[in-house]
C-alpha cells in the first residue's frame, strides 16, 4: 500500500486529535438550572465537573470512538492506494492503436479492442487524476492515435475532460499498424517547447517521457523501435492471444480476353488460427448473389497438415459470370468471426476500356510486347513521323494514354505519360552527360508497381546513357555506374526513362523485360481500370487520372462521406484511405458528362489479419510484458470514509442509548 499524501494526513491528525482531547478536557458549558435543593445531587461525584478550566481526561467509549474516527479520517487524507499503482510524474504519452486488428470483438460484452483500449485509457487517466484536492499534480498527458499513420488527438494537458473527449473521439480504421511514426510524433511534441539549449539545460530536471502503448501488440515495426535513455515504454494489452481468425486474403476478378463481358473471379482464404475451420464463401454483384461455394470449405489450421501448399491458405475460383458494365463484386465469408474486416472483400469492376498507346520508333521486341497486351489500341509511327506530328500539334501526344519512344530524339517533351528507351529527352532534370559502358544491375526498387514480380540481377547493359537526375526523380533500377531506369516529372509530362535500348542488353531475353514493359504501360496509363481495378490497401493514397477539364469531382467513402476534390493536372489525389470498402469517384468530364469510377480497398496484410493479441512485445532493448492499469489503481480512502460513516452510526446509537452522555 502506498500513501500518496502522508504529510497531509499526519498534519491533520496532529491537529485534530489533540484538539479533541482538549475539547474533552475542557469544562463543559452547561445550562443553568435552578432547583430547590442540591441535597440529593451532591453524591454524584463521578459526574461533577471541576470548576477549573481543564479537567482530568476520562476515557469514555465515545471519546475513544471519536479518536478512532479522526485517525481514520486522517488516514483517508493520506490517500492510501494499493501497491502496484504509482502515479507517473511529468509527461505521459498514450498511444492508442486504431488499426484494423483493433476492431476485433473479443473484449468484454462483445466490445471491440478499440473500445476496450479507450476504456482502459480513460480509466488510466482518471486514476491519475484521483486523489482529491490534496493530491500531487497529475501528469501531463498527450494522446496519439496510430495505425499506419499517427495523429495527435490532444497535446500535453492535464485537463481530464479534454483528454477523455479526445480518447472517446478516436475512431477505428482498417489500416495496418506502425508504431514508428507515432513515437516520432511524440518525440517531436515532447521537445517542441524547448530550444536545443533549453532542452540541454532542462534535461537534468525534465521527467523522462513515459510512453504507454494500449494495443493488441500487433506492431510489426516494434523490432526497430529503439528507446532513448529518457524514454520508458509500457504496454497495456487489449485482446485475447487465443482469438482465432479466418479471412479473405485476396480477391480478384478479370474480364476474359476472349469475351470481355465475362468475368472470372477468384478468392483466396486464410486461416490464422491453429485449428481447422469451415467457411462458406459468397460472391455478390451489386447485391445479387451470383456465386457461392456448394458446401463449407475446410480451412486447415495454420500449423496443421493439409493438402494446401501453404498451411492455412485455400484458393478457389468461380465459374465465369456475365458483367458487361461496371459494378462492384462483394465477396463475403460466412459465418463471420470476431474480426470481420477481412471477412469481406470488394472488387470494383470498370467498364471495358481500351488503352491508347503510341509507339514511336522501331523496336520489334517492344512492339511485340505491347501487341500482346489485351485491350490495347496501338498506334505506331517512326521517330521522324513522330517529331513532325509533335511539331505540328503540341497536344497530339495527349490524345494517347501512353507514349512509348524507342531511341527517338525528343526535342520537346509535351504533356502526357512517356515511356522512353534509349535517347534521353531534352529535359534538364535528367542531366545526361555521356555514355556508360558495360553495367550490371546493382539494385532495384522491388516495391514499386513497375518493378514488382521481377528479377533484374541478371541484366547486363552493354551501353547506357549516363544520367544524373535531380533529387525529385526516383531511381527504380540502379546500375553499377549509375541509374538505369528513373521515374520523374517534367512540366506536364510523367516520364519513365530507361537509359538504354533493350537490344543493347540481355534484358529482352528475360522475363523481367516482359513484366516491366506491361506494368509500365499499365502504370502510366492507369490501365488497371481497363480490366478490373486492383484492390488497394488501407493507408494507401488514392490517385486517379481524370480527363482534363473534369469538374465537380466528389469522392464518396465507404462510410458514405462525400468529399469534394479538385483535380490537379488531371489527377485526383485522396487519402490516406482509412477504411476498407468501395471508394467512388464521381465527376463531370470536359464534355459535361457524368463519370463514375470505383476503387476497391481491401485489407490483405497478413500481419494485421493475424488478430491474436501478442503474448509479449519484442523491442531491441528487451521483452515487454503486458501490464494492468486502471483497475489496479484502487484508492482506499472511499472505503475508509465508509467505515467512518458506519462508526458515526455506532456513535449515534451509543450516544442516544446512553441518554446523551456516557
Amino acid at each position, binding site marked *: 500500500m502506498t500513501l500518496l499524501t502522508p504529510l497531509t494526513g499526519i498534519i491533520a491528525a496532529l491537529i485534530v486529535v489533540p484538539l479533541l482531547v482538549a475539547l474533552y478536557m475542557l469544562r463543559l458549558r452547561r445550562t443553568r438550572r435552578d432547583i*430547590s435543593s442540591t441535597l440529593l445531587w451532591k453524591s454524584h461525584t463521578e*459526574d461533577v465537573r471541576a470548576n477549573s478550566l481543564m479537567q482530568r481526561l476520562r476515557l469514555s467509549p465515545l471519546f475513544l470512538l471519536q479518536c478512532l474516527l479522526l485517525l481514520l479520517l486522517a488516514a483517508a487524507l493520506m490517500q492510501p492506494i494499493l501497491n502496484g499503482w504509482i502515479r507517473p510524474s511529468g509527461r505521459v504519452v498514450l498511444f492508442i492503436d486504431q488499426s484494423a486488428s483493433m476492431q476485433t470483438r473479443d473484449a468484454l460484452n462483445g466490445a471491440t479492442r478499440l473500445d476496450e483500449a479507450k476504456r482502459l485509457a480513460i480509466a488510466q487517466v482518471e486514476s491519475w487524476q484521483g486523489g482529491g484536492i490534496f493530491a500531487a499534480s497529475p501528469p501531463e498527458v498527450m494522446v496519439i492515435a496510430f495505425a499506419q499513420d499517427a495523429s495527435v488527438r490532444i497535446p500535453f494537458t492535464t485537463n481530464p475532460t479534454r483528454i477523455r473527449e479526445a480518447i472517446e473521439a478516436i475512431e477505428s480504421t482498417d489500416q495496418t499498424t506502425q508504431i514508428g511514426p507515432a513515437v516520432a510524433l511524440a518525440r517531436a511534441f515532447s521537445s517542441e517547447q524547448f530550444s536545443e539549449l533549453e532542452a540541454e539545460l532542462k534535461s537534468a530536471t525534465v521527467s523522462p517521457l513515459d510512453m504507454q502503448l494500449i494495443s493488441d501488440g500487433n506492431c510489426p515495426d516494434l523490432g526497430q523501435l529503439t528507446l532513448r535513455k529518457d524514454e520508458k515504454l509500457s504496454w497495456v494489452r487489449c485482446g485475447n492471444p487465443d482469438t482465432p481468425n479466418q479471412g479473405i486474403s485476396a480477391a480478384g476478378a478479370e474480364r476474359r480476353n476472349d469475351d470481355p463481358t465475362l468475368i472470372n473471379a477468384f478468392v483466396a482464404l486464410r486461416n490464422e488460427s491453429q485449428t481447422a475451420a469451415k467457411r462458406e464463401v459468397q460472391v455478390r454483384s451489386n447485391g445479387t448473389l451470383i456465386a457461392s461455394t456448394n458446401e463449407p470449405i475446410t480451412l486447415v489450421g495454420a500449423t496443421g497438415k493439409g493438402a494446401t501448399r501453404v498451411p492455412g491458405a485455400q484458393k478457389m475460383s468461380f465459374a465465369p459470370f456475365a458483367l458487361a458494365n461496371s459494378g462492384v463484386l462483394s465477396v463475403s465469408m460466412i459465418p463471420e468471426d470476431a474480426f470481420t474486416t477481412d471477412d469481406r472483400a470488394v472488387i470494383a469492376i470498370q467498364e471495358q476500356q481500351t488503352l491508347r498507346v503510341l509507339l514511336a520508333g522501331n523496336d520489334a521486341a517492344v512492339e511485340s510486347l505491347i501487341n500482346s497486351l489485351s485491350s490495347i489500341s496501338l498506334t505506331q509511327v517512326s521517330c521522324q513521323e513522330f517529331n513532325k506530328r509533335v511539331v505540328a500539334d503540341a497536344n497530339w501526344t495527349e490524345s494517347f494514354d501512353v507514349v512509348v519512344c524507342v531511341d527517338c530524339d525528343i526535342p520537346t517533351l509535351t504533356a502526357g505519360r512517356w515511356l522512353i528507351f534509349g535517347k534521353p529527352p531534352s529535359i534538364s532534370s535528367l542531366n545526361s552527360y555521356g555514355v556508360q559502358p558495360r553495367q550490371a544491375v546493382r539494385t532495384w526498387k522491388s516495391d514499386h508497381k513497375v518493378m514488382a514480380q521481377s528479377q533484374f540481377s541478371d541484366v547486363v547493359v552493354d551501353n547506357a546513357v549516363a544520367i544524373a537526375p535531380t533529387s525529385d526523380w526516383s531511381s527504380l533500377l540502379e546500375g553499377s555506374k549509375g541509374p538505369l531506369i528513373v521515374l520523374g516529372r517534367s512540366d506536364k509530362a510523367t516520364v519513365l526513362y530507361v537509359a538504354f535500348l533493350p537490344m543493347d542488353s540481355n534484358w529482352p531475353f528475360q522475363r523481367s523485360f516482359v513484366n516491366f514493359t506491361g506494368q509500365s504501360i499499365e502504370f502510366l496509363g492507369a490501365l488497371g481500370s481497363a480490366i478490373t481495378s486492383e484492390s488497394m490497401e488501407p493507408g494507401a493514397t488514392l490517385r486517379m487520372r481524370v480527363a482534363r477539364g473534369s469538374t465537380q469531382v466528389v469522392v464518396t467513402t465507404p462510410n458514405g462521406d462525400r468529399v469534394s476534390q479538385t483535380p490537379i493536372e488531371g489527377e485526383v489525389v485522396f487519402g490516406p484511405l482509412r477504411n476498407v470498402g468501395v471508394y467512388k469517384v464521381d465527376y463531370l468530364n470536359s464534355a459535361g458528362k457524368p463519370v463514375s469510377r470505383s476503387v476497391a480497398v481491401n485489407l490483405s496484410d497478413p500481419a494485421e489479419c493475424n488478430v491474436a493479441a501478442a503474448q509479449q512485445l519484442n523491442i531491441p532493448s528487451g521483452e515487454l510484458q503486458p501490464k494492468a492499469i486502471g483497475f489496479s489503481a484502487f484508492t482506499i480512502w472511499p472505503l475508509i470514509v465508509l467505515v467512518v460513516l458506519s462508526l458515526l452510526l455506532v456513535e449515534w446509537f451509543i450516544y442516544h442509548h446512553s*441518554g*446523551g452522555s456516557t
Partner: protein
Amino acid sequence: MSVENKTSAMTKLEDLLDPSLVASLERLDLMSRKMLQGRMQGERRSRRRGQGMDFADFRPYAAGDDLRFVDWNIYGRLDRLFLKMFLEEEDLGLVIAIDGSASMNSGTPNKFDVSRRIAMALGYVGLVNQHRVTLALLQDGRANCLSGLRGRRRTAEAASWLIAQNAAGTCGFDGACRSLASARLGRGMVIVISDYLLREGYESGLRALAGRGWDVFALQILSPEELDPRTGDQSPDVRLVDSESKSEVEITLSNTVVREQKRRLESFNAALRETCLKLGVRHMTIDSAVDYQKFLLQSLRKQGLLK
C-alpha cells in the same frame, strides 16, 4: 434554561380557595388520631367530662356540684345523690405549618403556591368546624404564626395572611419546629407541609412537635422536576443551582444519573417515612402537580386526616 420558580400572583381568597371547592370542604372535618384536650367547648368529643351530650359515668355528689346534673331517679331509689357525668365536647387545635424556605419556591406548579392552597383548604375545614386554627410559616429557624382563628368569619383573615407570605431564605426546620412547639397553642393537630429536602435534617424538628403530644401530619410536597429530573428542560448538560445555598452542581443527566437520582429520592422518602413511623407521625408525599381538590377530597380522607 431555568425552571419557573416564581410564585403566582395571589391577591384574593378565590386565588387560594376555589369557590367550587368550598361546599365540598364544609362537609368535611379534621380527624385526629388522638383525643386531644381543647380549650373551649367545641364540637369535638373530649376525654374530659363536661357538658357534652354523650353520657360518660356517675359519681357521688359533692358540695358545690351543679345540681342540674344530679340524677334524681337514683336519688329516689337509693336516697343518695349521684351526679351524671357527660363527655365534654371540646374544640381542636389545628396548626398548619408551611415550610417558607426558598426551596419551596420552585417547581412547576410552584410548591409554595400549592402548599398555601392546601393550607387554606385545611384551615377552612378547621374554621368551619369551630377549631382553633393556627397558620405558621417556618422560615429562618422561626415560626411566624397567625393563631387564634376560629369560626368561618376568620377565613378572609387567614387567606390574607397566607397571601402575604413569601418563600425565601432558609427554613431552619429544627429551630422553627421547636419555636412552634413552645408556643402556647394548646394541644392539637399539626400539619407540616414541606419538601423535607433539609440540609439540617427533619427528625429533630418532627420529634419536638410529636413530643409535645400533638398529632403530627408530615405532608411532603415535591415538584415534578424533583420526581423526574428529565422533566422540563431536555438539555443533558446542566449546572444545578441550589435555591437556598446557591451552591452549584455540574452534572450530565444521563440515563444512569437520572436512574440513580430517582433511586436516591426513593431512599430519601423511605427514610422520611421510617422516621415518621418511629415518631408516630403520619406521612404523605404528593406531587405539586397533583389535582389538589382531588387530593383534599379523596387522598386525605383515605389517609384519615379528613372525614
